[in-house]
């Protein structure tokens, strides 16, 4: 019924989102009142916005961003792949649910969905899986992960998804559409019905 093939534009969008995401991860070290404790994690907000604009390719960008920002966060690259694939839940949820709400979040229903499912649930899952990966590779013990570490991780992601994600969607969505970059489908920019 629907068909698609990967186009050059898909690769370019994923790569640019990845590069932007990686730079934002590096920049987020500026929002650390205590070394190692970030209270704002801009890649969460940016990732959620790109997931709404570009679907699957926004999620790929989030994965790539984590891979290439690895040295700044103390991960080796192979470990970063685990974090990159398993943690950006707010981005994945935003990309899967994007067609159920207005991408500019101008009405209450859309805003409510975004806040409930992406900002709160998505970032919580991000933090949860972040802890699971950290436990798996030996960075944290389960007690430390689920009593201490999970909360600042969740807070930083949630604040960014709320502040930055909503702002970008409201301000830049019309611009993304005008540039012809907005994706109709999860994978494909244009849905070709056969």
């Amino acid at each position, binding site marked *: 019924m629907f068909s698609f*093939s*990967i*186009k*050059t*534009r898909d*690769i*370019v*969008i*994923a*790569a*640019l989102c*990845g*590069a*932007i995401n*990686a*730079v934002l991860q*590096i*920049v987020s070290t500026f*929002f650390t*009142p205590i*070394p*190692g404790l970030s*209270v*704002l994690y*801009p890649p969460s907000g*940016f990732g959620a916005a790109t997931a709404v604009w570009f679907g699957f390719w926004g999620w790929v960008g989030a994965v*790539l961003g984590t891979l*290439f920002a*690895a*040295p*700044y*966060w*103390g*991960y*080796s*690259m*192979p*470990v970063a792949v685990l974090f990159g694939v398993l943690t950006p839940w707010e981005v994945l949820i935003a990309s899967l649910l994007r067609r159920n709400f207005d991408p500019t979040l101008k009405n209450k229903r859309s805003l409510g969905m975004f806040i409930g499912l992406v900002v709160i649930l998505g970032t919580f899952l991000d933090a949860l899986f972040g802890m699971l990966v950290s436990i*798996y*590779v*030996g*960075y*944290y*013990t389960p*007690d*430390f*992960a689920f*009593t*201490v*570490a999970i909360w600042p991780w969740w807070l930083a992601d949630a604040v960014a998804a709320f*502040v*930055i994600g909503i*702002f*970008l969607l409201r*301000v*830049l969505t019309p*611009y993304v559409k005008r*540039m*012809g*970059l907005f994706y109709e489908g999860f994978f494909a920019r244009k849905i070709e019905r056969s």
Partner: protein
Amino acid sequence: MAYDFYVARQTVLHKLSPPTKVVFLLSTSLLALEVQDPRVNALLLVGLLLGALSLRIPWRVSSIFFRSGLIVGIALSISWLFFSKVGEPLYRLWDGIYIYDLAIPLTLSMLFRLWTLLTSTLIFVAITQESEFIAGLRKLKVPYALCLTFALVLRFMPLLIEEYNQIREAQMARALELEKIPLLERMKHFMAIIVPWLVISLKRVSTLSAAIDSRGFKITGRPRTFFHEPDVSLADWFLILGLVGLFAAVFALRTWMGYFVIVPGRL
């Protein structure tokens, strides 16, 4: 802020072929993850540190890894020393909080593991140019479309960092304060940098896609060649097989004979 880790030297490590470098990164990382014994992890770490020292990596590169290793190391140490209940209680800190006897070797082990992972990445990025990284992945049969995606990320990161810094300085010249202000204000001012930066970046998508297509790129349907085909010498093959063999041996010893393990059932 910069993203330029490669250190131009003519060392033995630099002369390894690209796929060997990628295998080196993967195998040393996986080895570190397999082993819990702090003595083995320490040995691996010392070996890698000697390798890193031989490269004479400038402080501007190694400081990034040093900083993240220190910060994550502190969190990791707190986690393993005070929040692990493995073995028998050794010291009582205060009511209900003990340091357990196995927590100390585990803390050391995980710390060495963390630093081993970071050092192997440091060595990898210091000896591998971007084009070599892509060539190495290609040689290991990663699909070219994915390799091109990685290449584009590496191509654009330095440019984006430059543009971010330019916009930041331009906004600061317009009296936009970014540092000595409350966090909420800092977030607002941050948007004054991010929005123009994103707009400039997104505008590139159409032109870049057009440029790539105009140079004949097809994802499928046309076989492509490669200008730089990395030579994998006999020495490279020995090293690759040696590293893979070492990983396999450690895996077998750990899985079937319980070597290198303090706490069974976890990495």
